[in-house]
Structures are given as structure tokens and as C-alpha cells.
């Protein structure tokens, strides 16, 4: 049995991205996790925004963090399923 940790939504998304962006995203993620990397990113404005955006996107993809801002993805999806069943939508 594999002991590998389950793939996170961010991992799955990065895996879907083509090279060379995939490598770029992995480097940005790694830099954003280290104090020295963060200092380096601050000197590169576009990369800084991108790295921060990716980290924040992962944070708010988490249902608990999104719920704190009023977004309940599970409820939106469940309402969709219920409506489709009720009205015979595809």
C-alpha cells in the first residue's frame, strides 16, 4: 500500500500545468515557504504577486478558510445537484 500523502488540490492543479510553467510554479511555491525566498521575491514584484497569489489561492481553496469569507462551495455544489435531480437537468 502506498504511504504517499494524498494529492492536494494545488498539487493536482500544478500537475495539470504544462512545462515550463509547472517548474516555475514549483520554484515560486518553494521560495514562498522560506524566509530567504520571501525576501528574494519582494525584490521581484511580478513574481512576488504570483507567489503570494498561489499561496493565498491554496489557503482559500480550503473550505474552512473560504467559509470565513462567506463562501460555502459544498453548499453551492449540493444545491446544484439537488436542482438537477429535481428538474431532470443533465
Amino acid at each position, binding site marked *: 500500500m502506498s504511504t504517499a500523502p494524498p494529492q492536494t488540490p494545488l498539487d493536482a492543479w500544478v500537475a495539470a500545468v504544462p512545462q515550463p510553467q509547472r517548474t516555475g510554479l514549483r520554484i515560486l511555491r518553494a521560495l514562498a515557504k522560506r524566509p530567504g525566498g520571501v525576501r528574494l521575491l519582494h525584490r521581484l514584484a511580478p513574481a512576488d504577486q504570483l507567489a*503570494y497569489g498561489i499561496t493565498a*489561492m491554496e489557503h482559500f481553496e480550503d473550505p474552512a478558510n473560504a467559509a470565513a469569507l462567506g463562501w460555502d462551495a459544498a453548499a453551492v455544489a449540493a444545491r446544484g445537484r439537488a436542482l438537477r435531480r429535481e428538474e431532470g437537468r*443533465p
Partner: protein
Amino acid sequence: MSRLRKPRRIEADVCIVGAGAGGAVAAAELAEGGKRVVVLEQGPRHDADRFSARPMEMMARLYRDGGQGMTLGSPPILLPLGRGLGGTTLVNSGTCFRTPPQVLERWQREFGLEQLTPEALAPCFQRVEEALSVGEVTPELAGRNAAVARRGAEALGWSHGYLKRNAKGCVGSGVCAFGCPTSAKQHTGITYVPRAEAAGAQIVTGADVRGILVERDCAQGVEARLAGGGRLEVRAADVIVAAGTIHTPLLLARSGLGRASGQLGRNLALHPATGVFALMDEVVDMAKGVPQSFYVDEFAAEGIIFEGVAGPPSYVAMSLPLSGKRHAEAMGRYPNLAMFGLMVSDSSRGSVRSLGGRPLIRYDLGDEDLGRFRTGLMRMEELFRAAGAREVYLPLPTGVRPADAGVRDLKLMAFHPLGTARADARPDHGVVDGDLALHGVHGVHVADGSVVPSSLGVNPQLTIMALATRLAYSLLGREVPGATTEEEIPCPS
């Protein structure tokens, strides 16, 4: 995934490559008209039960390359494309515009497309609009994000309105671009594809078409590789290529077709776009309602259109043009954030070619389009200020004002790629003729955004669908229902 069990070879009247805006429409019309139709789609069939309303997860699943396809050039531009039955109609905002009459006039004048008049296309548009339940968004469904933009436009006296969309029973889930969980958005994967299947068309997903078979300048069919292994050959006297503006020229080129004009893969037009955020005093809750429900077209004649855009927190977190503490503070006030999109009808042109089997897209933003972005960003800021914004976050580096922005300062995405196998009546100027038939080859047709010979200035899905409808009826040898004959068109007095 639907898969043909045995046959390596299928006989059909028409083989269609791609099940997006063009291919699915042509498939349904042809199958219902009595033709034996096979559709080969590279992507999968998506199940709405798995639409989670979580942007990152859905981007990986519904978009080609996770939505991170990109142009090479100055600046690099993200070019997201859908993947699967429905193509990009699966993930677009559902906005529906007919081709503007002035664009059709230009096509007649510059490209000799005299048959594509507003009168000739009207029954095609009407047929598509009925099939997709196209209607205007109501203010209630549009939500408070649209209300902010409307308030600004009204204060400034700018022309505006609610958009028409292909939606039925929409409840404003706010995630059109990440898989509609209610199946309210009438994308071609749940409208035209089922119609085609009901009329007997075979839909093969996971089919990577490698070449179009031609003998003595006549179409013979196509050959494809299947996702699970094996090859499939479809023999058909008519082939419709509808793989999309980026992939159609690659398929034609590797089939040795469409090169005579020198235009294949060239003339790539885009709608480069960007998003502007505003911090409001009021609660906006931008993801509650239809994200793209409202437009401001005051500057359309200058090639600048504002259209709504919005999304859940994770989408906003990725798009917000801030970092560090300012980003965190703005996200903390997500319920008060409003967002709107700026789209440019470009005069820049790019190209697409194959590099190692993948598309290499070149596109440099020209000075005219840079000017449109500068102007558009200034006016967008004005719009939000007029609506009462406390702060406006422009997609520019800190300290750069719109008037001083350079190409490299812009943070762009692009939508609606068009033109890489453009239609032109003259074989030495275009890849297909006005009837979407490949110049110089009998039986090969193109029905996707690649044939559209100029930027439209509006979302193109209806244009592509109307052209596909016209092509289908032409192959059936019939008039499009509701078509008015030439004698019946009232003459202008």
C-alpha cells in the same frame, strides 16, 4: 468515457473533429438532418455531479493545461481554453452577442465574404439562440457586483446594460467558469451533443486526431489515436475540423493542408483582458449572482469593453494585484470587494505553430492596444470611484499609473482566440472560403473560431455557432429553417 468497442474503422457521411461551439452544433444539425455523423473529441465527457464549485480543483479538470496555456511575447498572456465535450463553452461565462453588423460589413469589404450578411445569418442566430435559451440576465440574478458597476456607469452617463446569456434556470451559483453545478448554463456538451447522440451520431471521447486523410484533393476521413491505446480510422467524404483556433491550424498543417495561402496559423486575434478590483463600503459578495451579467460599452468604438467578472475567494486571491500585508488585508475584506473586467478588441496579431507537437503561440501587444489598456484602466478607475469605491486596485505594479504603463507592466489574460485559418474569398488570402470550405480541397471544412477573420469586439460563441449552423445546412443542401429568400428581403427605401 464513451469508447467504441471494436471497430478500427468506421464509415460515416461526416466526421467532425472537436465537440465545442462549432463541432457540437454542426454534429447535431447534420445528424438530425439524416447524415451519419462521427464526432472525435480529444477531451473527456464531464459529469456535473463532480463539479465542486472549487476553482483550483476544477481548473485542473476542465481546462486544457490547467488553464495555464500561455502566449509567448510581450507581455506573456494567459490563454485559458476548455477541454472536453462542450469545449470552451463548458467554462466560459455564457455571454451571447450576435456578430456586430459593422464587423460583417468589414468581412464583406476586406475579405470578400459577401454571403455572410446580417440577413443571411439571422436565421442561424435565431436557431442557436432558441436552442440555447438565450435571454437577458435580470438585475436580481446579476447580483451586487453588477449593481456596483451599474451605479458607476449611471453616475457617469455611460452606455451600459445587462448581458444576454445561454442559461436556463440559473440561480446565480457564481462559478460559470468552473463548471456550472446546476447545469443552468447551456453549454454545447449538454445541449447540442445530446441532440446529436439522440439523432444517431457517435461521439468518441479521448480521441486524438493525428491527420486528415485526403486523396486526389478529396477528403477521405481522419485517423486518430485513442486514449486507451489503439487507432481509429473514420472514413467520410466530408470532414469538419472544429478543434479550436489554437489546435485547428496544427491539425491542418500536419495533414499537409491549408498552407497554400501562407495564412495558416497567422492572423491570431485575441481579446486581451484584465481585472480591476475595488473596495466598497457595502457588502458585495461578488460570487453571489451571475459573474458576467453586466457590460459597459460606452467606449466600444475605441475597442474597449467592460464586462463583469467575479469569483469565489480562491479565484480572487489568485487574481488580486497585491502581495504581502496588503493582499491579506484586502482578502480579509472579500465580502466588500467588487471586480470588473476590461476587454480590448485588439489590432495586434499573433501566430500559432507546432513545437514538439504542442502549440507555440506568439503574440506581442502593439502600441494601439497598449493605448487601449491605458485608457481603459483610467476609465475603469473612474467607474469604481463614481460608484463610491474606497480604494481601487489596478493590475499594475505599485507606483505605476495607467497613463505611464508599459507593456511589461500589464497583467493580462486573453479570451476568444480567432483567425488562424481565416475565411477569405481569395485562395491566396485565406485558408477557407466564405462557406468554410478549405480552398483547393473538396470535402474539408472548418467550423470554429479559427475561420473568423477579424476581432469581433464581443464574445464569439454565438458567431461560431451560427457559422457552424450555416455550414451544416449547406452540407445538407437545405435552407436554414426560417431563412428569408433574397426576394423577400425588404429593400431599404
